C-alpha cells in the first residue's frame, strides 16, 4: 500500500483494483493535527470509512488517539465507521460538537 502524505493527490490503491477518489475534511483540533482542512485521496472502491481513518492515523499518531471520541460523516450525514466509500463521496471526521 503506497502512502504519500502530501495533501491533494494521495493514493492507497494498487493499479489493478477498482478505485474511488474521495474528498476528506478535517475540523477543529483534527485540522490542527493533520495540518490542513481538506484532502483528496484514492482508495479501493467500497473501502469502509475506518480504513480511510487508519491511513491518516498511521501518519498522525495523535489523530489516532482521538478515534474513540470522533464521529464520521459521509456526504453530510453521520455515518457508521463501516460505511463503504465510493467515488465522489465527501467524508469528514468530526470532533465532539460545541456549537450554541
Amino acid at each position, binding site marked *: 500500500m503506497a502512502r504519500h502524505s502530501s495533501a491533494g493527490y494521495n493514493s492507497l490503491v494498487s493499479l489493478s483494483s477498482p478505485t474511488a477518489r474521495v474528498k476528506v475534511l478535517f475540523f477543529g483540533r483534527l485540522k490542527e493535527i493533520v495540518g490542513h482542512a481538506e484532502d483528496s485521496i484514492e482508495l479501493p472502491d467500497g473501502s469502509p470509512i475506518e480504513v480511510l481513518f487508519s491511513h491518516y492515523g498511521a501518519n498522525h499518531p495523535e489523530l489516532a488517539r482521538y478515534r474513540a471520541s470522533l*464521529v*464520521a460523516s459521509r456526504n453530510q450525514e*453521520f*455515518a457508521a465507521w463501516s460505511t463503504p466509500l465510493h467515488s465522489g463521496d465527501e467524508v469528514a471526521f468530526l*470532533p465532539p460538537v*460545541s456549537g450554541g
Partner: protein
Amino acid sequence: MAKLLQPDLLALVRDPIDQAALIHHVHAAEDGAVVTFDGCVRNHSHGRRTLYLDYEAYESMALGKIREIAEQMHEKFPIHLVAIAHRLGRLEIGETSVFIAVSSAHRPAAFEACRFAIDTLKRTVPIWKKEYFEDGAVWADGEMPPAPLETRAAKPAS
C-alpha cells in the same frame, strides 16, 4: 395541509445576528406567542477568564442539520414559524452566538419547541468553538453526536 407561505429562516452568519429581524420574520397576526433563545458568549469557562471565542462549522452539513431540527420542530409541536441563526468566526464576550425564535398560536408549543431546538442543536450540529484565555486556547469540550449503529461484516444470506 396548508403549505407555509413564508418559510423558516435558517442561517449561518459571520456578522452580528439581527435578532429583531428574526423575531419579525416568525411573527404573524395569528400568533399568540413568540419565544426566543439568545445564546451569548460568557466571560468564564471552567473557572478561567475567557477573552473571546472563535466558532467554525462544517457549513453545508451544519445548515442541513439545522434544517432537520426545524422540520422536527414542526412535526413535534403545533408551532407556526422558526428562525435559527448561528454566528461563526470571532465573537467577543456578551455577543450572541446563536439566536432562535419560534412563533405559535399558544405559548406552550413555542416554549417547548425552542428548548428542543437549542438542546438538539448543541448535540447534533457540526459547529465547534475554540476558547481563548490569557494563557492559551482550547477547543471546548463538546458533545458526541448520535452516530449510526455499526453494521456487522456482511453475513452470508440465510
